């Protein structure tokens, strides 16, 4: 690893020079020395430094704390404070800028070294963590499913863009704090009612929900969190609308096929009865001796056809059932006669 580069902000010329010599002795590269906050910010625009050593009490409009805050937001370079004396108020102000270290003057060479190394390490770790977070976010947003993480008090800890879109939330860049699960076509209701089981008992739940014209398979997956008594819940919306539509189409086609079959059935029964009727007629016209036997046999066949008829009536029941339960607008016949009485009949 190449030696780290350090930028110094110190208005005391001798102290600054002393600091530079010590740093160079320790193997660092000193990229510059600024005597005020303003000139520090200007120099940092043109030179690339790994870390900044900042005296809190410096001359100029900005003190070290103000400058550190700017360095942090503008350049994302870690800052270590240097000071001989600090009061409580200043310390409180300094904390807010999240410094990477604190060195009291007069400084000790070894202390200086270790604080700088710790600061650099901490900064590298943080960069890596935020890089990891970016990667996870990219992955989370790459999947089409909407996902979010809820804590045991049912607040949203994290969610991907797809979920933000589904919930109708405006994507925001962190810092907003956890939000309550907003309603989404009433789906949140069905999620909330089941959450307890996952939070408390760590059960994975899967169920289907309709949202407008879309269908989702919703999964509630327990995730171990910091609280040993409660699970966090990963909520996943998997869009199954296409699958549902296909299923619906198959059902409709199935019904059409059944209707077709029943129609065939009906025609066939009618056609069987016609020759039966003819035989019966001819026998009655022109057969005396065997008439009774033939009529008995015809009776048997008629019974069989009646059984088929019964099957057809049963199919009618099946059809009604199918239509009622699988079609949007069941075309059921009226349950009771609805006769107003004017149209037909003989006068």
């Amino acid at each position: 690893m190449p030696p780290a580069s350090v930028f110094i902000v110190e208005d005391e010329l001798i102290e600054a020079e002393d600091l530079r010599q010590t740093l160079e002795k320790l193997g660092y590269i000193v990229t510059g020395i600024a005597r005020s906050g303003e000139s520090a910010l200007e120099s940092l625009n043109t030179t690339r430094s790994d870390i900044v050593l900042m005296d809190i009490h410096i001359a100029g409009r900005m003190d070290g704390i103000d400058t550190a805050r700017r360095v942090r937001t503008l350049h994302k370079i870690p800052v270590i404070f240097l000071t001989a004396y600090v009061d409580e108020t200043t310390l409180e102000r300094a904390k807010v800028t999240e410094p990477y270290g604190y060195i009291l003057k007069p400084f000790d060479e070894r202390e200086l070294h270790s604080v700088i190394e710790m600061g650099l390490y901490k900064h590298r770790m943080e960069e890596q963590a935020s890089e990891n977070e970016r990667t996870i976010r990219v992955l989370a947003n790459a999947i089409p499913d909407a996902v979010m993480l809820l804590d045991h008090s049912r607040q949203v800890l994290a969610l991907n863009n797809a979920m933000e879109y589904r919930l109708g939330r405006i994507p925001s860049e962190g810092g907003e704090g956890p939000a309550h699960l907003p309603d989404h076509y009433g789906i949140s209701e069905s999620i909330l009612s089941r959450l307890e089981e996952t939070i408390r008992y760590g059960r994975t739940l899967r169920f289907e929900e309709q949202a407008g014209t879309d269908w989702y398979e919703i999964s509630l997956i327990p995730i171990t969190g910091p609280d040993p008594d409660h699970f966090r819940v990963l909520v996943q919306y998997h869009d199954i609308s296409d699958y549902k539509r296909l299923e619906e189409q198959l059902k409709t086609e199935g019904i059409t096929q059944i209707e077709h079959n029943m129609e065939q059935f009906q025609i066939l029964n009618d056609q069987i009865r016609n020759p039966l009727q003819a035989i019966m007629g001819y026998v009655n016209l022109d057969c005396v001796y065997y008439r009774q036997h033939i009529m008995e046999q015809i009776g048997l066949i008629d019974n069989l056809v009646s059984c088929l008829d019964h099957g057809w009536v049963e199919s009618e029941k099946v059809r009604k059932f199918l239509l009622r339960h699988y079609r949007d607008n069941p075309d059921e016949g009226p349950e009771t006669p609805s006769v107003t009485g004017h149209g037909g009949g003989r006068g």
Partner: protein
Amino acid sequence: MDTVLVVDDDPAIREIFTAFLTMGGISAIAVSGGRECLDLLSTRTPDLILLDLMMEPMDGWETLREIRHHPVAGQVPVMIVTGKQPVLADILQYGGMIEDFIGKPIEFGKFVACLPRTLEQIRDLHQITAQKKEAGTDPALIAEYIHLLHLVRVTQNLIRRYKDNSWADRISLKKQEERLASLHTLLGFPDRFLIWDERG
């Protein structure tokens, strides 16, 4: 002599029906379909039409509708004689327009033997109805009465004949029967019209 028109696409049925009707002293005409039936009605008005249901291209119900719109023969009584099982929706729609719904196979001899009495009852109703109209009774109420009388009779006959059919227990005629009874009293029709016996 009474004339009965047989509408059936099966030539054997037409032949035997004609034979039995003739033997029973009834003048018989037979045609093979709905279109032929309507054509015939332009020139002749039978006393009764025996109508099959499953026919092509014009089925029995369609033929019935056309008959009821016929300028000359619109009032001819129609009896369904078919191998098709009755369907609830059809009965509710057409029950008020027909004398009866009879399932094949039938015993022609018995059936034909019953016909004179049926025709007599039809004429009886027709006659009383004409009298009522002449006496100034509201024709709309009469038409409603006639329609309900047919619907209730056809349905009760079917329920009796097709006891094992699932739709039979789903049909509720209560309202129609009540309305029929009140019209019967209101219009003063003879009680014999509310008594019907098994046919076919």
